[in-house]
């Protein structure tokens, strides 16, 4: 158990490709840190550098205060759980879990006892003599965990350990991983593509994009105060709606115009975000979380907090209803949103003839909106997010932005 530090870590492949740039992370003893980002963002590369499976091109990695740049993987005393589980197909579950211990020449009886204990924690006791190919996906995943646990390493490194499981099992194993990590108190770095996993598991979550760290923060802070457009769009499901709008009025009565409709903002928005004052009379990117919108018929809407549109699609989820609608505002097309669209597998449409942006709102299941109906949406204007249209950085004001991105581009 130890602290893990990544100091200015970078990775450049021999062909000149840059995978990770100037990554600085400090992981406390016993902390669960999740590295999250779209595929190709360098999160796995960063993890593999910490593991010793990948050479470190720049910077330093320390584990328990020891610089390990030149230490081979087998001497770093960290355990890794692979996406593919990487179980040894020719060994029984018992031998798979005990493999690392037997390489360390521990006495047989001690290995036996440790494997038995790990198997008990993971509910594998009755499967110890089976071969991996006779196990279900969830059981294989447990064996992979067991192999890490049994070594009592300084740190766990997990590379998308749940991505090969089906949805239901994933939720179950997610809770189990959280429980085991808490019980053992082992420093953990967990790489995932899934923001739900990131939010539920991490003590802190580090969001990466194209090899660069965007923000490191506890999950709720990441959600409430995203440092930039990328983090805002990546964290949250359905994703935050991003619209171009313009601010007008004065500090006492700020107004926001989006797609020909006007929202009056509470004055508190400006006191919370002093820097926003300088955007009055100019364009900004507005972020509205789907959950900050509600059917006007169901709430007491205050003056100037409503949008109107037509419901294009209504998805009843049971606990809530997702209503898709469009407003006549320009789409936000920046490098961040392009990256988000690429990750989601959708194309950025660019500028159409008429400006049009699709939004998603999360309504209470009591709503009676149907496809094609006109819909009045009440927006919680106190919970809007504002971003600079050029840099994509969140607009807060001096010192308010939390741990901002490491370097502006």
């Amino acid at each position: 158990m130890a602290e893990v530090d990544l100091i200015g870590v970078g990775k450049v492949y021999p062909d000149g490709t840059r995978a990770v740039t100037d990554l600085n992370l400090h992981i406390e003893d016993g902390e669960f840190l999740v590295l999250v980002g779209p595929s190709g963002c360098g999160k796995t590369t960063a993890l593999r550098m910490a593991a010793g499976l990948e050479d470190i091109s720049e910077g330093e990695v320390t584990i328990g205060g020891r610089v390990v740049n030149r230490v081979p993987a087998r001497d770093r005393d960290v355990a890794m759980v692979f996406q593919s589980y990487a179980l040894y197909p020719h060994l029984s579950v018992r031998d798979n879990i005990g493999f690392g211990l037997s390489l360390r020449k521990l006495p047989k009886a001690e290995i036996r006892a440790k494997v038995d204990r790990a198997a008990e924690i993971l509910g594998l006791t009755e499967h110890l003599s089976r071969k991996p190919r006779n196990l279900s996906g969830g059981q294989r995943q447990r064996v992979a965990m067991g192999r890490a646990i049994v070594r009592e390493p300084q740190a766990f490194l997990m590379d998308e350990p749940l991505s090969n499981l089906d949805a239901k099992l994933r939720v179950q194993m997610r809770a189990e991983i959280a429980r085991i990590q808490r019980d053992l108190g082992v420093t953990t770095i967990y790489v995932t593509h899934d923001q739900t996993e990131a939010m539920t598991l991490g003590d802190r979550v580090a969001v990466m994009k194209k090899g660069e760290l965007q923000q490191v923060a506890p999950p709720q802070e990441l959600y409430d105060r995203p440092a930039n457009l990328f983090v805002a769009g990546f964290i949250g499901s359905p994703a935050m709606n991003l619209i171009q709008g313009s601010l007008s009025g004065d500090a006492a009565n700020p107004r926001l115009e989006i797609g020909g409709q006007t929202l009056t903002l509470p004055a508190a928005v400006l006191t919370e975000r002093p820097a926003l004052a300088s955007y009055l009379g100019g364009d900004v990117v507005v972020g509205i979380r789907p959950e900050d919108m509600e059917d006007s018929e169901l709430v007491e809407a205050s003056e100037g907090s409503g949008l109107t549109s037509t419901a294009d699609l209504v998805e009843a989820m049971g606990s809530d209803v997702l209503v898709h609608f469009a407003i006549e505002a320009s789409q936000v097309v920046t490098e961040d949103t392009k990256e988000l669209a690429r990750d989601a597998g959708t194309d950025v449409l660019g500028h159409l003839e008429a400006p049009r942006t699709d939004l998603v709102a999360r309504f209470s299941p009591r709503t009676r909106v149907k496809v094609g109906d006109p819909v009045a949406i009440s927006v919680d204007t106190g919970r809007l997010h504002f971003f600079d249209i050029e840099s994509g950085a969140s607009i807060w004001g001096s010192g308010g932005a939390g741990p901002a991105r490491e370097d502006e581009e």
Partner: protein
Amino acid sequence: MSTAEKAAGAPARADGGNGAAGAPRRGLAARAVGRLGGGVAQVLLVLIALFWLVPTLGLLVASLRSNADNSAGGWWKVFTKPTQLTAESYSSLLDKGDFVDSFWNTVLITVPATLLVVAIASLAAYAFAWMEFPGRDWLFLIVVALLVVPVQVALIPVAKLYGHIEFGGFHMFGSITGVVLFHVAFGLPFAIFLLRNFFAAIPRDLLEAARMDGGSEWTIFRRVIFPLGGPAIASLGIFQFLWVWNDLLVALVFADTGSQPMTKWLQSQMRQFTGNIDILAPGAFLSLIVPLAVFFAFQRYFVQGVLAGSVK
């Protein structure tokens, strides 16, 4: 493709449009393979296998008859006169010291030549597949290129080389060691090629997991790669064993009468006019029975290994 097949293919493609890509049309061979599981095919295969065994059976029967009986008529006559069967040829053959010597020579050549090739090739293949060192890929290309060097071109140069190697009464030329080394040298390129490709198909994660678990290169090789490469290594071993056991050319060139294997001894017993079939038949059968036993003992691995590289 036959015209009938084309005609049948056109409508199939036309109505295949609405479904996904419908099942592709299967050729005659594909359909034949598909029916191999059926009972009729099983019986047919057994018949073919038995048919192929007939010459071996003939040799066995011939070796169990006297010289006079063999010259009087073909081996199938034994079915009408079972009393002809006698183990006399075998007992007289096994009394011949030079035959027994040649049998042991074959063993002494084949076993080391097989073990050395398997040991060296699996280590080299691991290095070529999974270790990083400068010039690795070039070196491997050279090994692959060596695959096409025929044995024949090396006979004279190696014979000359062996002629120079002698110390303390040991002469490389004509020795068992010389024959073994020649077989090892010419067995290695293919062996390395085969095993390297097999090892390279082992998932990288497995090796990395072993590395994280604290394994050195040697441990990873011994405890992960070697067991996983089992089928390929076994089939390579069988290949090499059969090849060396049956070799005549290398033995003719490099072995002398003291180190000659059975193949060379049998060849030396050939007469222009038949007359010593009582020596040749049992000798040939004894030299055949060992590879046959090896093959049947390991045929499971053999099939796995042959399929190993091609079917991922």
